[in-house]
């Protein structure tokens, strides 16, 4: 590089927003991951902040309870020197009866450049793109997608495996209600991984095979030859009592335990958190050295920095 003028070596996202990973190409996903690796290094420095997005304003709109995703986005914005507004559902104007459209248009009127949204309705993020000019990042919309979670899973996997091509990944648990599973399926298949989904038939949507994945209902079958196991959280708050007989039975049938770690000595385990210990993972697995939950947390900040950085609008727009 000889000066700071824009140079030809430029790769860009084709998208203006991150609503989901179903339409993102392998190149775009790899660009996010390689950018995230550079930001990951920033997080190890004595001063964990770069001036990259000085002057950019980001609104964090969380209409659904979330601790780690919200904090992760907040930290990512701050590490990039962007300004951040936090807006929660309860105690806000939404509980006074304002519509989502009015809320975000009011927020945008305060000159916000990017909006991060978590909402219980699938398509909420997509809806926003039609109401406002700001860039939109989906932080989870109902059971639809949670793209940054999948991206942080991919970054974590890529730290342990060189290539996604032919990598055998099993996603275990409540596939039907999981936006994490959907985003992961889209991204992993795009990158050439072989994805297996596994769960009780009550938690398995119909026609899951049409997403290009193998569907099994037996955990041992799912773990056979598996490189990466992604255990999904049983969302007690969403599940009716009827879908799983009991947490104990779920653990006996689909929970990962120490025996699985011994039987599959190369397999790594991911979990989006928060872990229900004794349900999806027993204590031995949750604290196992091949369980990458804490790597996922720090990678989450790096991946969100990358997404914010790559989507941030230039002043020319």
């Amino acid at each position, binding site marked *: 590089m000889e000066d700071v003028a824009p140079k*030809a070596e*430029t790769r*860009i996202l084709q998208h203006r927003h991150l609503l989901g990973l179903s339409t993102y190409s392998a190149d775009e996903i790899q660009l996010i991951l390689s950018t995230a*690796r550079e930001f990951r290094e920033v997080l190890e*420095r004595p001063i964990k902040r*770069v001036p990259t*997005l000085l002057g950019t304003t980001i609104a964090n709109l969380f209409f659904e309870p979330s601790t780690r995703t919200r904090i992760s986005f907040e930290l990512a914005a701050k590490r990039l020197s962007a300004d951040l507004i936090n807006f929660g559902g309860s105690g806000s104007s939404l509980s006074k009866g304002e519509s989502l459209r009015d809320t975000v248009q009011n927020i945008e009127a305060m000159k916000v450049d990017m909006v991060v949204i978590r909402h219980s309705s699938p398509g909420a993020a997509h809806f926003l793109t039609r109401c406002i000019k700001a860039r939109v990042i989906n932080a989870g919309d109902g059971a639809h997608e949670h793209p940054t979670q999948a991206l942080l899973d991919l970054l974590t996997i890529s730290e342990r495996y060189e290539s996604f091509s032919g990598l055998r990944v099993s996603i275990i648990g409540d596939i039907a209600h999981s936006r994490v599973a959907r985003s992961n399926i889209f991204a992993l298949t795009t990158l050439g991984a072989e994805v297996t989904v596994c769960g009780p038939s009550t938690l398995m949507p119909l026609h899951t095979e049409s997403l290009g994945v193998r569907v099994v209902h037996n955990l041992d079958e799912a773990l056979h030859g598996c490189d990466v196991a992604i255990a999904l959280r049983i969302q007690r708050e969403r599940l009716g009592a009827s879908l799983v007989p009991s947490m104990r039975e779920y653990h006996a049938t689909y929970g990962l335990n120490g025996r699985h770690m011994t039987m599959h000595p190369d397999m790594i385990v991911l979990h989006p958190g928060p872990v229900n210990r004794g349900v999806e993972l027993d204590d031995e697995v949750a604290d196992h050295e091949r369980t990458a939950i804490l790597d996922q947390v720090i990678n989450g900040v790096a991946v969100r920095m990358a997404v914010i950085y790559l989507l941030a609008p230039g002043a020319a727009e």
Partner: protein
Amino acid sequence: MKPSDIVKAQLMDAQDMERTLARLARQVIEELHPNDKSAAIIGMHRRGVYLARRLQTLISDFENIEIPVGTLDVTMYRDDLHRISRKVQMRSTNIPFDVTNRHLILVDDVLCTGRTVRAAMDAVTDFGRPARIQFLTLVDRGHYELPIRADMVGRVVPTIPGEEVRVQFNEIDDREGVWLVTRGSR
């Protein structure tokens, strides 16, 4: 070089570069205080990294002095990020030593506006507080926009607007040398 580049002149061939690099390496050695082990070289992406490694080898060959080399990508510190929507690909920053109290020599292939050096100084001071920072460049083409000058210069090449200087290294390019080019239409 880029496909759109139109070559106006070759400024250095491989042999010229070898000679100039040898002189720069000796100049770096001159700058080192005797018995001071604090010196380190930081190469700025992209070609500054290769330049830094060459200097490291030469310094080791000449005087048996081992100087650590780090790499720095200043993309995150650019002052024009808010003006452009196209994002430059980031490359790895790897500084495998504590910069505090060190004598740092920043290395880049070409000095033009000085903005990259400004960004690099901001970046390294986020890693710690160096005792001293110097700047070494292979070509100084001079269109300074900041009060920043090089401490060690391979060659001064006055250029006119529209001209660019391309430094090529065998390690990443298919040839070695320095060329003066104009940017053709893209």
